[in-house]
């Protein structure tokens, strides 16, 4: 089998708490190890000045295929993933049709393989058609290879359905990803409920909507012994609840997006639809709580919540515009610039949130550079300064509020299955 030697980089592997200079050897589709002897490698990559990390994993993206190929396809979405440094993405079930049956899941996997970019792990629906009424055929979805379940942006609103879903999915030890938000408290909302929404006359989405649902899911997790992954956490209250639940040993994980950490509701002053996201951008107090949650390990995952939308959908009245940011290609530089360089997180802490953290949620043999793990590796240039330019995105969509922002650091070389799939 072909060997690939990544020479002279700073190897950071949070799964082993390892941070040192060294050579990483890959053979075929597996990692051999660090500084393993290999006199005549088939290929050598010079990694001097670069950080060598386990391939990054994005736990929360929407790829829109099938059904909304005007926004994104699996091919363009996974190309965007590579450009953002990701070797794996977990995609939501909220396509058209919904991934609530075996053939839909298999279609996405096949399209992912055809594209030949990053690995694609489709999440299965919790309920048929994401409608929150009846459980999807989880057993058959598991047989297709589905690793977790989610109704995407739609919360599983009915507590009894959520309880049964957690019980049922526990047969295969699969987590339920839930979007924690009480729907009736955020109806027609477009931004965080607070002083700014009052001033602008925009309908608010109170933090309590998230806190309440997080509390419910923790209670159901305890009741059923199931696994819950809470998607896109944004409030101080939710993080406090999750911290205490994890201290009690409950199997709860959670994630946060970079835009939640970098922007407050103040930006809605511009009425710019690029800032319309769900959960909404909140306040400094909530941001501080998120950062503390990342530092103390309450939050194990940073995800992009990649929500591509074609321009005609975002260039409309704020009430009609769909939520979301196309985030795959900006997560890494935004986190380097906004979290590492500002001193909030170390490289080790940050990389754990995009490697071993998400790998553990999905139980993947990835996110680590241990011998025998899958040969997915991301080489990061931490020093390059550049300006985010949405017109250069690999993604089909351009909806981001970060265009024009000066950032540092980006993915230099991305290796999937032992093969170089992307070079900056």
């Amino acid at each position, binding site marked *: 089998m072909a060997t690939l030697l990544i020479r002279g980089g700073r190897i950071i592997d949070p799964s082993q708490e390892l941070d040192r200079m060294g050579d990483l050897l890959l053979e075929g589709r597996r990692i051999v190890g660090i500084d393993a002897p290999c006199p005549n490698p088939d290929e050598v990559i010079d990694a001097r000045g670069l950080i060598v990390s386990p391939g990054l994993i994005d736990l929360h993206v929407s790829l829109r295929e099938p059904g909304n190929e005007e926004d994104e396809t699996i091919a363009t979405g996974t190309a965007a993933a590579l450009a953002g440094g990701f070797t794996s993405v977990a995609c939501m079930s909220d396509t058209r049709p919904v991934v609530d049956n075996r053939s839909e899941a298999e279609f996405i996997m096949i399209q992912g393989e055809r594209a030949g970019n990053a690995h694609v792990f489709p999440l299965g629906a919790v309920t048929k058609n994401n409608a929150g009424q009846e459980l999807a055929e989880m057993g058959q979805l598991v047989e297709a290879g589905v690793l977790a379940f989610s109704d995407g942006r739609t919360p599983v609103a009915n507590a009894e359905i959520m309880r049964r879903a957690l019980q049922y999915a526990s047969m295969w030890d699969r987590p339920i990803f839930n979007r924690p938000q009480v729907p009736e408290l955020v109806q027609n909302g477009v931004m965080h409920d607070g002083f700014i929404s*009052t001033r*602008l*006359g925009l309908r608010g989405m109170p933090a309590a909507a998230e806190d309440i649902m997080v509390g419910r899911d923790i209670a159901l997790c305890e009741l059923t012994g199931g696994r819950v992954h809470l998607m896109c956490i944004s409030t101080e209250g939710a993080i406090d609840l999750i911290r205490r639940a994890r201290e009690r040993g409950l199997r709860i994980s959670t994630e946060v997006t970079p835009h939640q950490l970098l922007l407050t509701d103040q930006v809605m002053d511009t009425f710019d639809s690029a800032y319309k996201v769900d959960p909404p951008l909140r306040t400094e107090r909530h941001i501080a709580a998120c950062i503390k949650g990342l530092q103390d390990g309450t939050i194990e995952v940073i995800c992009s919540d990649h929500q591509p939308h074609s321009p005609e959908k975002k*260039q*409309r009245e704020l*009430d009609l515009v769909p939520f979301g940011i196309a985030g795959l290609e900006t997560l890494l530089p935004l986190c380097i610039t906004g979290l590492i360089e500002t001193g909030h997180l170390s490289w080790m802490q940050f990389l754990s949130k995009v490697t071993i953290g998400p790998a553990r949620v999905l139980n993947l043999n990835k996110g680590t550079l241990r011998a025998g793990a899958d040969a997915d590796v991301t080489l990061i240039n931490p020093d390059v300064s550049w300006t985010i330019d949405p017109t250069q995105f690999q993604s089909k969509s351009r909806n981001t509020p970060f265009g024009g922002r000066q950032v540092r650091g980006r993915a230099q070389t991305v290796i999937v299955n032992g093969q170089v799939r992307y070079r900056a």
Partner: protein
Amino acid sequence: MPVAAAVPASTVKWTRKHLLGLEELSADEITLILDQAEEFKRLAARGETKLKALSGTVVANLFFENSTRTKTSFSLAAKRLSADTIDFSAGGSSLSKGETFIDTARNIEAMGANQVVVRHSTPGAPLLLSQHVNASILNAGDGTHEHPTQGLLDVFSIRERVGHIKGLTVALVGDILHSRVARSNIWGLTKLGAHVIVCGPATLIPPHIERLGVEVAHNFDSILPRCDCVNLLRIQFERQRSGLFPSITEYSHLFGMNGDRLKKSKSDIVILAPGPINRGVEITPDVADGRNSVILDQVTNGLFIRMACLYLLHQRQNPTAS
């Protein structure tokens, strides 16, 4: 027939291309509009009702939400200034055929509109339009955000009756949460030095509104003796259906302006209502038609305020010129 009104004696020059809200205006700019409106009102009283100021220009009324009085008022204001007008409402337009808001406005502009008066249910829609068309945009109400000309005509009507704004205590009563009129009133009145009280059911007062520099009250009777003016916001019956207050009767009992409450008020209290009013709900007929009421003056003054806005946007000074 004069070409235009004499420019009021003010050192402030109007430089803005759009009128999107009162939040962004300075006290001087607000006063400039009020003075201009006063000038138009004076001319009209002399019989000079038709002015040539906007002759040869086109004012388009683009109403994506129902309105009778605001639209009529803007139309008449434009005609009084000799502009040609186009009326466009969502019902009879290509919007129902799926055309976007921005495309509709671009089409109107392609017909030569210099000023576009826009009403829309979404906050920020006029701002969005100003980013996509070259015409001047006048906000005629955007969702629950602002309704600047209503705010201006309310302030104008108070100033006309009392003589000044500074130092007055003005209560805005009713549904503050869903009211663009309330927000524009708050900006206009506080910038000119009034003390504003917002008073209504706790479910209809939005969070943190005190940070706009207003006092929050829920007991109408306790604040009434202090008030120089009350502005009775229209209550929409669907708010009761969505559970924001228990009944219209209870609302009227707690927050309606009636003869008994009028007796407890200052004798020269000014009663305003942006209308259309629900007689017997926010206000009883004896008060609405009584000597303290300026409700119909508000309608009259609305015309002059809108003339002033159209005129000033048209005549705006180039801010880069010295």
